[in-house]
Every structure is written in C-alpha cells, then in structure tokens.
C-alpha cells in the first residue's frame, strides 16, 4: 500500500498497474485506447508540465482507469495548454494519486510483474476485499469497449509538421479498429489515404465489400488470445490485398499465421525501446506499449518470417508473411508519444497499396 494525495476525480479506480518510462506524452497516453483497464504509473516524476491541449488526443476519451505520479504540475506552461492535468482529469471523471514514491512502485512491478491495483480513499481492508474480488485484466474483453460501434471515415492530416507530400485521397484504407490511435489515421491521411474505420467484429467479406486498397489491423488493449474473431478476419483477407498490423495488429497477424502470444512480466511501455531489423542490421528507437508478445518459437514452420527483434529482450518486434503481402510490427510507427523514426513504415505500406492497386 502506498499513501499519497488525491489527483483528478474523486472516485475509485481498479485496474492493472503498469509503468511507462516516457518523459513526455502523458496526454497521448491518457487517451490511448491500449491503456484501457489499466492504472498507468509515470516513472518521470514531473507530469503535467505543459498541460493538456486541444490537439494531442489519441481518442475521444480518457482510457486508463487511473494514473499514478510523483508530482502533478498545478500551473502548466505551454502555448497550447488549455487545462491542468488535475482539472482535465476531474472533468473527465478519472482519478489519480500523486506524491507517492513512483520509483519504489516501479521496482515492485519490475520484480513482481504487473498486478491488479486500486486507487481509493476508503478503508484499506474493505478496499482490498473489493480489489481481490474484482475481475482481473486478463479476463476482461477491452477491445469491445474501445472499438467503434459503427464505421466512420477519417481524412484529417493533423497539425504537426508534415514533410511527406499530402494531396488528394488516392487510396482507401480499411482499419480494423481494436483501439486505433488518431495519429495512425492522421499519418495515413497525410499520405493520401482515406481511412474507413470498422468495428472489430467486421468479417473478411464485409471488409472486402468496402473495396479498400489495403487493410490495417490496429493496436488495442487486452489479451490478444481473446480475439479469435479478429484472427479469423485476418485469415480471410490473406492474399487478397496488402495487410499491415501495428502492436495488437502484429499479434493478430501472428496468430492468423499459426503463432501464439504470451504475457510479458511487466511489458514494454515507453519511448526508448531499441529494435533491430534482421535484414539490414539497423537499430531503431521505437515507441512501445504492449503487455503481451509473440513467442518466436511458435512461428517455427509457419508461413512467416521474423523480421525484427527487440535488442533488450529478444522478443518478436516484426514479421512478414512469406507468400503474400502482409507484414506487421509490434511497436508504434505513429509515435504519439515517442520518436518519429519509424514513420517510413507508413510510406512503405502506402507504396505497396499503390503498387497493388495498379
């Protein structure tokens, strides 16, 4: 038990406690659907310094159930800042805790693995009973909570500096939404793609009925093994049009190709994870947010090649199918938050879509 001061809304939160080592990007993390059902601890001690602004949303609502910080900045300073962290969390009805030894909790998670936790101001014993009775993260289907109910289109390029050529929407991309981040849609829009965002329950035939030039399997929260219907959709699309998967999308494609996933002790969450491309040998610093990983041995004999590995722990970071156009990466080329070094993946995939359209 760690005691601190209240932050944000005056409610309880129960969720899986995970830590993120990024030093910027709390607004993106707060609105990233992949954090659904989690209590996010920020290891950087000063959170909220530049406030919350109108632009840097990765979805329409706050997705983690709570946050843990050392110090929440009361008076942020940045030209785009509209709310302080505390005010924003109060408005969005999300609780948090501050003034705790976040490094001690991080080390606790590092040695014991991620675990369910609770932010509360109730009697500890009573709260503990509720916590133990609560449904665990692994048993919960979060994708159905964050996926869109109805299809929608996206053709907004965002307002960051764009050095790729923009222009007309030449291509149509189907996005299987398991918890897509806005910046994925912004990046594709900037490259001339109009995205049609579809619910996670969409079947392969329904996807094809939209006549897309390519399909993206999006990131998302929860255990990837709980999504056999999405895996089925992926299998149904193999060989019919170019496919790209990001994060959970990588785990979906791997399962569709015969692989399996396992839960990491404390996941990869941060903006500094080195990934090595096995063909070129080049190492890229990537933005990551995942609690599950693909077991490399499960792909033995599968119709797929492992293309990238994590430099720190050797887990699978990218694969491609051998006989048709489908590839995926475990990290986030859209950044938001994190480094922009992997943006070329969008360019590459769009080029594939274009080539196969012709």
């Amino acid at each position, binding site marked *: 038990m760690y005691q601190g001061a209240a932050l944000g809304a005056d409610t309880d939160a129960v969720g899986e406690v995970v830590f993120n080592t990024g030093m910027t990007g709390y607004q993106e993390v707060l609105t990233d659907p992949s954090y659904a059902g989690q209590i996010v601890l920020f*290891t950087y001690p*000063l959170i909220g310094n530049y406030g919350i602004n109108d632009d840097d949303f990765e979805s329409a609502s706050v997705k983690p159930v709570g946050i843990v910080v050392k110090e929440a900045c009361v008076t942020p300073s940045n030209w785009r800042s509209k709310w302080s962290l505390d005010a924003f969390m109060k408005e969005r009805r999300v609780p948090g805790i501050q003034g705790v030894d976040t490094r001690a909790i991080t080390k606790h998670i590092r040695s014991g693995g991620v675990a369910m936790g609770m932010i509360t101001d109730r009697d500890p014993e009573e709260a503990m009973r509720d916590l133990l009775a609560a449904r665990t993260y692994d048993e919960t289907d979060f994708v159905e909570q964050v996926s869109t109910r109805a299809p929608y289109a996206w053709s907004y390029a965002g307002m960051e500096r764009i050095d790729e050529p923009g222009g007309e929407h030449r291509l149509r991309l189907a996005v299987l939404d398991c918890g897509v981040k806005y910046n994925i849609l912004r990046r594709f829009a900037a490259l001339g793609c109009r995205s049609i965002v579809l619910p996670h329950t969409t079947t392969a035939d329904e996807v094809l009925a939209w006549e897309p030039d390519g399909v993206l399997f999006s990131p998302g929260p929860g255990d990837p093994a709980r999504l056999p219907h999405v895996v089925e959709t992926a299998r149904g699309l193999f060989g019919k049009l170019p496919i790209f998967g990001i994060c959970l999308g990588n785990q979906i494609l791997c399962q569709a190709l015969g692989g399996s996933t396992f839960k990491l002790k404390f996941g990869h969450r941060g903006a500094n994870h080195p990934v090595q491309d096995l063909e070129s040998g080049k190492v890229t*610093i990537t933005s990551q947010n995942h609690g599950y990983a693909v077991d490399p041995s499960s792909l033995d004999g599968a119709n797929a090649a492992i293309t990238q590995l994590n430099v720190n722990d050797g887990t699978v970071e990218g694969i491609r199918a051998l006989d048709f156009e489908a590839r995926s990466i475990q990290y986030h080329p859209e950044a938001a938050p994190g480094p922009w070094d992997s943006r070329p993946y969008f360019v590459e995939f769009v080029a594939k879509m274009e080539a196969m359209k012709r």
Partner: protein
Amino acid sequence: MKILVIGSGPIVIGQAAEFDYAGTQACKSLKEEGHEVVLINSNPATIMTDWDVADALYIEPLTPEFCERVIARERPDAVLPTLGGQTGLNLATQLAERGVLEKYSVRLLGTQLDAIRKAEDRELFRSLMREIKEPVPESWIVETPEQLEALLDEAPYPCIIRPAYTLGGTGGGVAYNRDELWEIGSKGLKLSMRSQLMIERSLLGWKEVEYEVMRDSAGNCITVCNMENLDPMGVHTGDSIVVAPSQTLSDIEYHMLRTASLKIIQALKIEGGCNVQLSVNPDSFDYYIIEVNPRVSRSSALASKATGYPIARVAAKIAVGKTLDQIDNQVTGTTKACFEPALDYCVVKIPRWPFDKFPQGDRHLSTQMKATGEVMAIDRTFESALMKAIRGLEVKQKDLRHPKMAALDDTSLRGACAKPTDERLWALAEALRRGWGVDEVNRISRVDKWFLRKIQNLLDVERDLLDLVESTATQGDDAEHIRGLIQRAFHIGFPSATIRSLLGISREAESEAGHEQDPVTRVRAIAAGFIKAMQGEPVFKMVDTCAGEFESATPYYYGTFETEDDAALNI
C-alpha cells in the same frame, strides 16, 4: 591498433575541465577494446595524464611540430581527435593539412574532417541546412540604402543588424520596428568599411534547447538527452542555468526537435557524439537550428553525468568501428548502448563564474562564455534540485536570499531581472518575493513561467516559515502544523540551515526544549526537534539510465526525500 589520443591541454576560461573527464573515459574505453593508447597532452595537472590512463604518455606542447615528432617516434595506426575539445580538433586539422597524417599513414578515427568543416563553417553549415530543409535564422545582406529600404517591410522584427568589418560590432544593434531599422541600418552602412550589413532575425526571448545525439558508422542514431535552458536565447549555453530533460516541451515539440537533430547528425555523417542547439518560439511550432558541435563537448559531459550514459566511452568505441548495438550499457550490464536513457528525476546545472575572484569583471552574460565551471544537482523535483545546485556553487548564498538584491529599489531590480548576470536567479526570486507575480517577471525576463512558478513555490514555503514565527501569538503552536511545514520545507529542498535561519532558531533554542517559555521560543523548540528528526530522513535513489525498468549493476546515487532507499537495498 595503436591509437594516438590528443588531449585538451590547459584548462582555460571558455573551455571547461570536462574534456579531461571525457578524454580519460575514452582512453580507458579504447584500452578495454584491446588497443594501445598513446596520449599527448600539455597539461600534467589532470587525471588524464596519470600513469595508468594511457600506455605511453607525452607531456608536450600541443603544436603540430611536437605532435609530428610523437607520431614519427610512436608510428600509431590512427589518431582520435574528437575527444579533446576544440584544441584536439584544431590540431588534427593542422596535421592533416600539413600532410603529416598521410606521410606516416595515420588514419583519422571518428568523424572525418570534411564533416567537421561542414558543421563549423557558417556558410557551409547554412547551405547544408537548406539542403536538408532544416531552418536556420533568416538573414539578409544589405549594401545600399535602396536595398535597406526594400527590406523595411519584409524584415522580421525585432531583427539584429550587424555591419560587416567593424570593430567589436560597432554600429550594430537591435531594431524593433521599421523606423529603428532604417535609422540603425543607414548609420551602419556608413560605418561599415565595405558598406555591408547583415540583417538577421532576432531570437531574443525564444527558448533555447539542446540535444545530445550519437551516431555510429552504420548510421544508427540515438538521442542521449535533451536539455532546456532556464535563460532564454541571448546567453551562451555554457553560461545558462540548464535543466534536463526539457520541461516545457510537449511530446510533439520534443520529437520535432529530436527528429531535426538526428537528421542533422545523419547529414553530417558524424561518427560519435554531437551536440545540436536549437531555438524554439515559445508561442508556436517554429524553431531554428542555432549551432552544431560535431564532437564531444562540454554539454556532452553534462548530459553524460545527468543520464548515466557514458558518451565519451561510447564515442571512442564508435570511432574504432563498433556499432551502438554491439556496445554494452555499462550501467545496467544487461542492455545495450543503443537506446535512449529515461530519467526519473530532474537535473539542474548552474554555471560557476569566477567573478568572486575578479570583482571588477563585467558580470553581464551574453554570447561569449564567462563561466569556468559548473555544478550539477539531481533530485526528484526541480525545486529541490535547484536548491541543491545553489549550495553546490560554494558562493555565499545557500538559498534564494541575496542581501544585494533585497537592497535594490524596484527600478534597479527590474534591470537585474531583465539583463542576464551571474546573479539573475536571485533577482528573479527577489522580484517574486516582492509580489510582482509570475506573469510580470516573465514579461521582464522572458524566463519561462514554468521555472518562475517553481521559484514561487519555494518562496511560498519561505513565507510560511517566516509566518510561523511571526503569527505564533495568534495561531498558537500546533505541533502537527509545525511538523507538516518543516516536512514540506525539507521535501521542496530547503537545507536545515536555511529553515533554522528563517525561523530564527539558534543553537541554544534546541537545548531549551521542554522548559516553560514564551510562545515563540516554544514554537522554535518544537520546530528544532522536527528539523533534527528530518535530517535522518533522506534516502538515496539510483541513476540507472532506465527509470527503474531494468536492474542495474554499476549505478550512482543521489539523495532525496522519498520512502524507499535504493542504496540500502543494494548493500
């Protein structure tokens, strides 16, 4: 391989002793790789010239002549010049130009000379930046009054006017509008020997941010650390108070500047460390590239100590051909050098100026560095790191109080806030203490409100401590209230000596506890007890490059007020 390392020579103003630290680290790193190290350095009073650092040591003047003799005698396979600051770089350039390197077939390790030239020559650099579409401050050359007139509508105000070929910038200045540009410009045209002016966009008041980046021969690039200057543009970064990481940049801004920095190091084909300085508009996404140092610099040494990432060690290994993913992260022992450190603390650097030794010296800070050293402090909050750094300076001031600033009238204090000097930090604090408010002090000094509010937080505690004694008669001596306040003061970074002095606690007061006294004495006695108790409270946290994500083998520590002690767990 036998490698000649060129040291940085004597420690002079403007070139800090950090090169010594970097050079020593590099020599050890090369020996670790099994290379034979020959060192030439003219400074015997450094750690670098200790017996066990290099295999062969020459304490000789750092001139091409002496260097050639060392090369003739030792016949090294290669020379590593990028770790001895500007001195080493210049010497290597001279050796190459005189054909010495060719004559003895000595290979130049690390960044090649044309890359260095591209970074250091103003025109070459500007054209490279244009090529890769990175913005440099706009500038115009004006040679006639007609050209000047044509520029009046176009020029960005304020702009800086620099007449060419005049002594010490005579005739130059800052124009805030077209009338001033016309006035200063026409005068400048007359004063300039060749009738030539350079008009440059002024970035006064913009944020100054630095990125420490590394690249290996395979083209892998990483950022070790970014830093934000408390002092806005106009003060040499070596003379600025600096924090790491940046505090007021959002994720998009942080990565926009990171991407630019990596693009530059990639375009320059640096092999090793490099420092990129950028200027950021506090009110938009606009930024400019100010300068690039294509070598291990004073800032690298700071970034290295701030993050735990051994830049010089890694740069030396890159110079002999290793790639980042082949080099171990020495701190964790389990991960690789190809990653970006994550900090879970705040770092504050304050320069140390020699004005106490030169009382007649001009204390104004500008584009030429005057500091001779610096202190770095680490803590979990900016406030406490700042307070630690002040104490580390070993100046008379141990906190934010300064009798000289307190004695200034409001007009003089305004001036002290506006014009950067070594004492501006205390002027800012005094202005806030007088209740001018963060917004007003920001308008005067252009120091970001984030920093000013943090200073205000410290002053609030200072006020509360003073109030404790002053209002005792009305508020009584609630022990819980006193304990809470003392705790707050320690947590935000007040040293016990400052708390004692603000409460007026003398040594005697502590021993008088428990007796019947007047309320003020009783409050002091209670407070003294809590101060003593708090002194035993601090714990040590680890600098581990990864914010606790991985266990670390050879870390170092900083003291802070938290609950868990990393050092105790490690013993």
